[in-house]
């Protein structure tokens, strides 16, 4: 990731997505955006703002409420040479589109023996906070990782958001592009020009040697905070952002684990059959027979997301609990170490409705 320089400036994650979309739409006529409310003045949290004014309603298509058809329409158009970007305001709505995504889009290239290509991006946003509750806060990355034929990417920084979206749009496969509502307002240095962040390459966001912490999507932000807490107790955590979940860069993770001997995986999602289970299993398969590694997964509590804040706060792993888990893992037992309290301003300051 670049340091600030003449060609970069600080913009938000949402702006980075907007910019990647705009630049590619200018460059390539076949790129278009479709989804419920994409031309709405609020522009899906700013990520699609002004695109319809610039490119017209044929290329920024406000759709009827029809997620399954929207997905089929996108894949059909992609077979005709277009490059659709479908947008879902909530990832939960993708459950209405599983048939078209998994039975059709993911399989078309293979099932037709390579005769057709289905380049399409499906953007979706994981919700959180302010009583989003059961049906507006799901994080279903593992469903898509499970299925061959799909690629899955979940960038956490504005830099990676722009570059990964560019790579996704240019990719010739169906790509599930996962955002998190609590990341949209984050700012970071982003180059003005087009660039790609490649699939299958993890990023070490913080180097360290005592414990490896892998954080997915918004959990990454909490992991960085946890790493700072651990540092106050002289524990040096290496924090890795996989960015791309399918394909997944096992090698970078394994190299880190071989160095630290300890692995804490924190997903922004449920752990059962989740991304964290996959990463843990891959590490076992790769490092077994070598040195002993301590491992732990964290994620959403295995319950439905409640709306009331007092329970919601317990539902998500926060930096405090992550730091504590890391510490205890390292010590090999439950300790009474208490981490510094780290603030999570993006959550505390977020106010409804959405």
């Amino acid at each position, binding site marked *: 990731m670049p340091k600030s320089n003449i060609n970069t400036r600080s913009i938000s994650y949402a702006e980075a997505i907007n910019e990647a979309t705009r630049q590619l739409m200018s460059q390539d006529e076949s790129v278009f955006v479709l989804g*419920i*409310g994409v031309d*709405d*003045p*609020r522009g899906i949290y700013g990520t699609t703002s002004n695109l319809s004014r610039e490119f017209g309603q044929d290329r920024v298509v*406000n*759709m*009827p*409420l*029809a*997620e*399954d*058809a929207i997905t089929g329409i996108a894949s059909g158009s992609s077979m005709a040479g277009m490059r659709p970007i479908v947008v879902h305001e909530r990832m*939960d*709505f993708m459950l*209405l589109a599983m048939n078209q995504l998994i039975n059709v889009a993911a399989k078309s290239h293979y099932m037709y023996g390579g005769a057709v290509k289905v380049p399409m991006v499906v953007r979706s946003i994981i919700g959180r906070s*302010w*009583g*989003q*509750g*059961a*049906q*507006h806060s799901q994080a279903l990355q593992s469903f898509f990782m499970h299925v061959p034929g799909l690629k899955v990417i979940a960038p956490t920084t504005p830099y990676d958001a722009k570059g990964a979206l560019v790579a996704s749009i240019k990719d010739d496969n169906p790509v599930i592009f996962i955002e998190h509502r609590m990341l949209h307002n984050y700012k970071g240095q982003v180059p003005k020009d087009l660039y790609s962040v490649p699939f299958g390459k993890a990023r070490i966001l913080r180097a360290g040697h005592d414990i490896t912490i892998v954080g997915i999507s918004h959990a990454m932000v909490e992991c960085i905070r946890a790493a700072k807490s651990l540092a106050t107790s002289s524990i040096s955590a290496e924090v890795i952002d996989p960015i791309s979940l399918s394909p997944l860069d096992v090698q970078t993770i394994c190299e880190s684990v071989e160095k630290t001997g300890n692995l804490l995986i924190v997903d922004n999602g449920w752990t059962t059959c989740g991304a964290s289970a996959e990463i843990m299993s891959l590490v076992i398969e790769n490092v077994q027979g070598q040195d002993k590694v301590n491992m732990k997964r964290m994620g959403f*509590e*295995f*319950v*439905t997301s*409640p*709306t*009331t*804040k*007092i*329970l919601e706060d*317990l*539902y998500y792993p926060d930096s405090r609990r992550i730091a504590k888990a890391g510490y205890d893992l390292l010590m090999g037992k439950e300790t009474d170490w208490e981490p510094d309290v780290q603030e999570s301003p993006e959550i505390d300051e977020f*106010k*409804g*409705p*959405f």
Partner: protein
Amino acid sequence: MKNENRKSNKTKLINNLYKSLYRIRTIEEKIALIYPTDQIKSPVHLSIGQEAVTVGACAALLEADVVFGTYRGHSLYLAKGGDLNGMMAELYGKSTGVAGGKGGSMHLVDTNRGIMGMSAVVATTIPQAAGYAYAFKVMKQNNIVVSFFGDGATEEGVFHETLNFAALKKLPMIFVCENNQYAVLSHQSERQSNTNIAERASVYGMHSEKIDQNDPYTIYEKVNWARNQIIEKGRGPFFFECMTERYREHVGPSERDDIKTLSAEIVDPLQQLSKLVSSDFKQNVFKEVDLELKQAINFAEKSAFPAKDSLYKDVYA
């Protein structure tokens, strides 16, 4: 029935409709006022302007009749007799809420009053309502189910799947579309090739009708008639598209700024009813509602937040 009797029945009904509508309007306006204090940490979708539909329809239902609705559910919940304290506490995220603080504004429920739930995912309660009606039918229970949903919901595939099933099985149910012409900021004409929803429903072979008035009494009469047809003649299902108007933003407490003027044809139901009700009656209603609302807010404020271990409760029955 004598003419006078009929007239006095109608007066009573109008009074009740007025009271129900005034009460709901007042409660929701109060919610809008409280909202900026951040005590309600839940996305609220207000029905202000469009209460006539649920108020009118529910006036024709018995307590054992069942309704399903959407995230825009305060009005339905209250019109069907849902407990106000439980609703307020739920909005405040308290343990005394109807869902123990786990559901919030979008998932109101009161099974004792036949309010079987509301969903934040558009159109999802439509087939559930049909399933409930199917149960009524095979269990030979003399009640009906009413499914409430917006104009946007009629674009979802499951709407069509359910209409076909309900008509095929002649289910004891009524579909009520609250057509406020908008899905968030998107007008019906941007989303539907034929904006006449009642016409689209009619091809499934059921009685289907558009009601233009946004008037609770008209809606009451239609739903009452349909309910009788179902109970007495075994007919069903029925479909009503009720034209109405939402005054506030899609979600949140603010007035709309996305449309300059509201449709001229659609009148404010509260103002209309107000003309038909005596001022004595109104004064009483004002007082009653004021008191009830104060108590409910007090109840919500005073109630405790859920205990931490309740996070793990009710995942499985």
